[in-house]
């Protein structure tokens, strides 16, 4: 599978939390070749691939929403005030290019007051969101015909290749997770697995795991695997808080993660020569995983992550091989469920 092409297609459409519909269309056209696709009331895309029977109900869940912004006010001279949707570092969005999805797509840049007009004390303080504005180059009068409060704003950043098999761009959190899930779907295309699989591209994770909550309620899975990103190691991040790019997906372990599922995944990875890392998560963490775990009756669940550098920026960076290996780990795990018997690590029944 051409992962880079897939990521480019995802990157080409806006998919800010709550406004994932254009991406839902893109994914539907791809996923429907392999599974029965529906979009639920909350906006989650659910691709159901039936099993041969007697298998567990497995929910794979990768959130599809990206962080972004929303227009809050229009000012004189065509400047636009905005509010953030999801966790944006105010310190890394100055001089970035954006698109406002108004009546038309409106180009803009996030400007800044020049340094020579800024006191040396202010130069040492981050510019607050309230003091930023997007320059659209329009007069207020014309802008009012194109844009209004509530319009969604995305960053303009294409996917570029770096050395060493890496890619960089925006919203790789979590298009790389969706890509890994898609890899798994393709790997399983001609395989008669007994597991009943629900591939979920969830909505509104970045604003509070909201889609995963409703999807879990609807699906009521036996086993849940959340696929997200984890902190990639970069200067300033220690081994205890990050995973290396290119060393395989991270399998999470901690009080929340079902230990026997952790063991089963490690075994599958070992048997199939898939590189992996272990991510120890002591606290709840922000991922969809949490909502899956506390689903009705409790769900045997775990979090798989793809290491991502510079998370929540427009220069997020990931390794292609980690995405492929994550997809392979998932599909090989599904296949391993085939002959599972009571007592085995991957057996799911209580």
């Amino acid at each position, binding site marked *: 599978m051409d992962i880079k092409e897939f990521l480019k297609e995802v990157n080409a459409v806006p998919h800010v939390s709550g406004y994932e519909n254009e991406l839902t269309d893109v994914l539907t056209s791809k996923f429907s070749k392999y599974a029965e696709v529906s979009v639920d009331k909350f906006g989650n895309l659910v691709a159901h691939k039936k099993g041969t029977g007697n298998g567990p109900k497995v929910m794979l869940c990768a959130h599809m929403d990206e962080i972004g912004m929303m227009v809050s006010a229009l000012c004189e001279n065509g400047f636009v005030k905005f509010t953030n949707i999801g966790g944006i570092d105010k310190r890394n969005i100055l001089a970035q290019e954006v698109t406002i999805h108004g009546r038309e797509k409106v180009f803009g840049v996030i400007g800044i007051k020049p340094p020579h007009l800024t006191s040396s004390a202010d130069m040492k303080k981050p510019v607050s969101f309230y003091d930023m504005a997007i320059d659209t180059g329009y007069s207020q009068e014309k802008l009012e015909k194109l844009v209004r409060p509530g319009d969604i704003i995305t960053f303009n950043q294409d996917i570029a290749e770096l050395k060493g098999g890496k890619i960089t761009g925006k919203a790789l959190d979590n298009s790389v997770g969706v890509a890994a899930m898609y890899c798994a779907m393709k790997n399983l295309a001609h395989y008669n697995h007994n597991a009943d699989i629900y591939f979920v591209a969830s909505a509104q994770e970045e604003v509070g795991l909201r889609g995963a909550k409703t999807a879990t309620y609807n699906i009521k899975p036996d086993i849940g695997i959340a696929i997200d990103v984890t*902190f990639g190691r970069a200067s300033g991040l220690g081994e205890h808080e990050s995973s290396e790019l290119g060393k395989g997906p991270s399998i999470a372990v901690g009080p929340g993660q079902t230990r026997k599922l952790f063991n089963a995944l490690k075994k599958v990875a070992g048997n199939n020569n898939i590189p992996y890392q272990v991510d120890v998560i002591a606290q709840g963490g922000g991922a969809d995983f949490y909502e899956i775990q506390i689903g009705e009756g409790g769900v045997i669940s775990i979090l798989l992550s793809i290491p991502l550098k510079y998370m929540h920026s427009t220069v997020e960076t990931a390794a292609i091989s980690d995405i492929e290996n994550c997809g392979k780990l998932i599909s090989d795990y599904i296949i391993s469920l085939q002959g599972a018997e009571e007592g085995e690590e991957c057996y799911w029944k209580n």
Partner: protein
Amino acid sequence: MLLEKLTSACGLPGFEDEVRDIIKAELEGIVDSIKVDRIGNLIVTKNSQASGTHIALSAHMDEVGLCVKSINADGTIKFVSWGVDQRLLPSMRLLVGEKKIPGVIGTKPIHLQSEADRGSVYDINSMFIDIGCNKKEETEKHVSLGDFIAFESKFTEFGESKIKAKALDDRVGCAAIIEILKMDLPYKMTGIFCVQEEVGLRGSAVAAKGLHADLVINFEGTICADTEGVPVHEHVTTSGAGPCLSLMDRSSIYNKKYIESIVAVAEKNKIPYQYRRTAMGGTDAGSYHTAGAGIPCIGIAVPCRYIHSPVSVMDKNDYENLVKLVAQYLKSEALTK
């Protein structure tokens, strides 16, 4: 479009070759002579046999950017910058060296930041560029110490009449001089495209020596702070209100006689203009006005919002009016007196 071609080229101080080549190709056959001096300034002459007033037109070819300082064990690159506001650097995408290897300046994820982190700005000394290599030896295959690093930014027209690009300071000046040299104007003219303005007016210091012009018109992209939240008295210039004329900056006090003469031409021809309303900044005029016995200078510029950033913004009308005003000025009687 000429400005698109010029801003898409990379020309960090001391590495202006790409820009110089474009300008040369544009002027080939248009001017009488083209020469490059030892520091790298491109100097052209037109109507060199004409007698009377000799006008020099000057702009600089270099742009602000970064330079490779060292390579870390983990393959990332440490850098120095020329005139770039460090607050803009996080999450910037860059092109490293002549091969233009893509690189990014990444930062600590917001999830892992402390309260103290969030309340401070990223310090340039703690930043690094990631080109994807994990090891110093890998990076060294692609990058050498001293390589220049340019902003990655696509020339984009937007809004009603705006342009976003990098290096508008001072490719907009280069473009204007090229257009003027292509016109049929009577004076003996010297076009000077300088190197290394951003690191201290070095190219013009060389070009000024031995220049025997009667007047230098220096073309610039200049500060414009007419943005949301900035009080009017701090705007310096207004985007869309016409080319701006300098009265004073840190390098020169401009000759009042010539300012008045060009203003008269603007008013007669109903070409919008404005004054640059600050004494900050410096330009190559600083080199010219004290050269030899002294050459009077006019400083004229296009207002550029977010100057020295990858997303500089200018108004097309300001550029067109600048070219129009200088052309009218050079056709007027003002200079024959």
